[in-house]
């Protein structure tokens, strides 16, 4: 009945540096330890590890030379010095983001043309609304939240040509948020993209020099509702 538990005990001894102590059944009962909470914490570690592994295994993508295909999930580890830190301390954060959907041009326009910040798209470009989700996996300091802003995401035609435009202010949802470890967030951003042409979708935290580049060769790969 407890074969799994026995193997857990054996492994537990080798994982002491994780600061997780394996308990016997008696200890769990005596100390009133909630096995479900304990299991949930292990899952947290598993998921953080998993994200870190995916980051390391895909370190060769995410640049203009070798961008991640835009329909894939990114794992981005970057550093900056948060306001709370002095200049000698560096802070690392492991984030993941994913384009859930890009709305068709007409539908996108209906969603944003009445909003503050809207202006007609430049010639050869069109407005599109992106539905983005991101997740904060791990960081140097769990009490420092990471700001993620609509401005951190930009569309590039090529490495030297970002598409610049005013930020659309949405009324229904937040586009600039501070998220903490283990939190996830979904929101919408409005961006101009080139009509019928490939583009780069780039994430860069405002205080970091590290960016993450994805490439949308054909918009159909991220137009998931069609």
């Amino acid at each position, binding site marked *: *009945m*407890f*074969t*799994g*538990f026995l*193997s*857990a005990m054996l*492994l537990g001894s*080798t*994982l002491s540096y*994780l*600061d*997780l102590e394996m308990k016997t059944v008696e200890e769990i009962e005596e100390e009133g330890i909630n*096995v*479900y*909470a*304990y*299991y*949930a*914490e*292990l*899952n947290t570690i*598993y*998921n*953080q*590890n*998993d994200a*870190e*592994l995916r980051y*390391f295994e895909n370190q060769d993508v995410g640049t203009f030379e070798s961008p991640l295909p835009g329909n894939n999930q990114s794992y981005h*580890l970057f550093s900056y010095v948060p306001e709370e830190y002095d200049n000698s301390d560096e802070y*690392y954060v*492991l984030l993941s983001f*994913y384009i*859930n*959907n890009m709305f068709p041009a007409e539908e996108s326009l209906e969603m944003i043309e009445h909003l503050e910040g809207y202006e007609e798209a430049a010639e050869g470009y069109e407005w599109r609304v992106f*539905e983005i*989700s991101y*997740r904060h996996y791990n*960081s*140097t300091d*769990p*009490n420092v*939240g990471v700001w993620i802003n609509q401005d951190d995401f930009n569309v590039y035609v090529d490495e030297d040509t970002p598409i610049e435009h005013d930020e659309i202010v949405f*009324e*229904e*949802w*937040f586009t600039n*948020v501070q998220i*903490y*470890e*283990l*939190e*996830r*967030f*979904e*929101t*919408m951003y409005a961006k101009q993209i080139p009509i019928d042409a490939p583009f780069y979708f780039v994430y860069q935290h405002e205080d970091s020099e590290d960016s993450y580049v994805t490439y949308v060769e054909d918009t159909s790969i991220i137009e*998931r*509702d069609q």
Partner: protein
Amino acid sequence: MLKKLIYTMITMNVLVIGFATIETKAMMSPEETLKMIGDTLERIEDQEEQLAEYDRVLEFKSYDKDIGLHVNPAEVGQEVSYSFNVMDEDEKVELEMSITADLIADETVYEHLGMNDLYTILDSQNDSMIWAIIDFELTVEDSEVDVSHTIHADDFGIYFTRMPDNSIMGSSFR
């Protein structure tokens, strides 16, 4: 459109992120859970072997042991360790303290707030928020450190951990 969004969100949780599985597994018996703990430790062991090949910059944390973080908040009244920098000193000072709070959220709040020049009516888009008065009581434990620490109302912030269900977009949760 809303249905499409909800559908996308559900598939994200299960297929792409895979975090949502914990709650359903919590329905298992304690014996089954212990077995799953064993299996998960094996998988973590395997991950650790693979990660050892790389230069890591992030560390593990045991959230259960570090109370008072955003991811592991203290209970009201629970003692936590709080560190801060004394003015003009590099060294951090650590205090043990606990906070209790009385929340006043009935209509009397508006009687009090209406007399305050800074009172503003909440934006109509924030129909999930109300004004409330919070009566904080801070208890700092006896400390050998001889410092004073001024506490401002601005030091306290309110964070949403979960917005109402009808607010699908723009809600932060875990």
